[in-house]
């Protein structure tokens, strides 16, 4: 485990060439409430970085600012070197509550991003079918969201994000509305997909175990106003089986260390 100290983050980081997403001096005010205070972060390409923190620390706000869904009060987000002014095709979002269109089939939901890009029906359905298979939902193409379980719905959300072939995937607590057993399976599947797709993942969660299990890099935000408190790079051998990882001493130590750091924010 490598622990990058909080002190390092107060100085402006020099842009690293392999950063897919650069966050520079992001502040966010909601009326009188300061949600985020001068966030400087680099998200390395091809890695899974987790934003972790107590509830209300602004981690989802930061993710939505990166997505271009809400404007920052000040500061700048650059994706592949280009400043973000709104949502863009190089970023795809996975929502906490799935955000599937209830009137559309799994197929249409997954192909929706491609449909909006103006891609022809046969072409986009072929791509959608591939990703529906990849998330393990083959055979459910013509089902509607209300016919699926929570876990299956989020798989649709994940397939939709993969289908648009974005460089950066933004996941906002994707498994929090999924039951525990499904969540574990999901985390394992996600790691397999991270390995397979070679994309940059930014993942928001409030589960320490989930963060340590899935991440190459964990950014811990402090309580409101959100600031970068600590960056941790868990060095866990991911070639081991999921069950071995969960019993690994390094894994358990990292979980414990993060908990010790976060404990003071819990009332």
């Amino acid at each position, binding site marked *: 485990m490598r622990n990058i100290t909080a002190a390092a983050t107060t100085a402006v980081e020099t842009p690293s060439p392999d950063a897919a997403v650069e966050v520079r001096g992001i502040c966010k005010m909601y009326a009188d409430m300061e949600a985020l205070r001068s966030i400087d972060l680099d998200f390395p390409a091809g890695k899974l970085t987790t934003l972790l923190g107590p509830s209300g620390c602004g981690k989802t706000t930061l993710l939505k600012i990166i997505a271009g869904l809400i404007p920052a009060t000040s500061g700048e987000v650059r994706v592949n070197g280009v400043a973000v002014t709104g949502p863009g095709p190089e970023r795809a*979002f996975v929502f906490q*509550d799935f955000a599937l269109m209830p009137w559309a089939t799994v197929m249409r939901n997954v192909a929706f991003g491609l449909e*909006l890009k103006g891609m022809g029906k046969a072409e986009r359905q072929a791509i959608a079918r591939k990703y529906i298979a990849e998330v393990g939902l083959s055979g459910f193409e013509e089902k509607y969201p209300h016919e699926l379980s929570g876990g299956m719905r989020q798989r649709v959300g994940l397939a939709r994000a993969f289908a648009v072939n974005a460089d950066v995937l933004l996941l906002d607590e994707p498994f929090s509305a999924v039951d525990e057993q499904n969540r574990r399976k999901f985390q394992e599947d996600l790691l397999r997909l991270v390995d397979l797709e070679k994309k940059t993942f930014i993942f928001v969660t409030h589960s320490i175990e989930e963060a340590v299990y899935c991440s190459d890099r964990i950014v811990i935000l402090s309580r409101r106003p959100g600031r970068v408190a600590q960056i941790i790079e868990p060095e866990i051998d991911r070639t081991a089986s999921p069950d071995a990882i969960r019993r690994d001493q390094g894994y358990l130590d990292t979980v414990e260390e993060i908990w010790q750091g976060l404990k003071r924010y819990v009332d």
Partner: protein
Amino acid sequence: MTIFGYRVPMMASLLAWCVIWEIVGQMGVSFLIPPLSDVLVAAFSLVQTGTWQAAALTTLNSFVIGMALAIVVGVMLGLLMGRFPVADNLFGIWVNIFVSAPLSALVPVLMILFGMGETTVVVTVFLFAVWIIVLDTRAGIQAVPRSLEEMGRSYGAGGLRLYTKIILLAALPEILAGIRLGMVRGVKGVVIGQLLVSIIGYGELFELYSRNFDMENFWALTIILFAVAMGLSALIENIEKRVEYYAGVR
């Protein structure tokens, strides 16, 4: 419904009331209530007359135009009010006043404004139907989950496409409920409009039969009108059922 363990079909109660009507009619309690069988015979011959067909056509014409306007204006205004607080503040009070106001009282004023013809009837239908459509559309738009809208935006649906591909579809259950309620009110509007003002179409026939105490034809007219109103409502309800699952899932 079950009685003494037997399943009784839904329409059975209607049948029972029909039998009661027939008996009361046959007993000759009042000339206002002729036997149902006579009314049905009258209805059968009534629909074959040119007078009825012309009246029905006039009425249908006013109703369809008024309803179409009410749906277009109602959905657009409801959309504006649901999306923009400024519009909500500006129109909210008026919509709430008009939705509960006794609009029949306004009809004579409309007659002065729009004359004795069909225009007044169209306006009456519009005024009866539009407000509930506005209110229901507004409620539906406000119930659209934020995340669904964000989903649309983040996958590239900006501007108009956000409305046509996400927001209006997500609000469809409430919009349909509003249209169904609006249609029922619109049927009232068309008859009241024709009766009070123009004395044309269906209203003219109502006036004619009730003045001459021609109760068979009067009731025949009423039954046909009720059947049409209920049929329309059932039709929309049927479409509503198909999209009912929306509300639960989104």
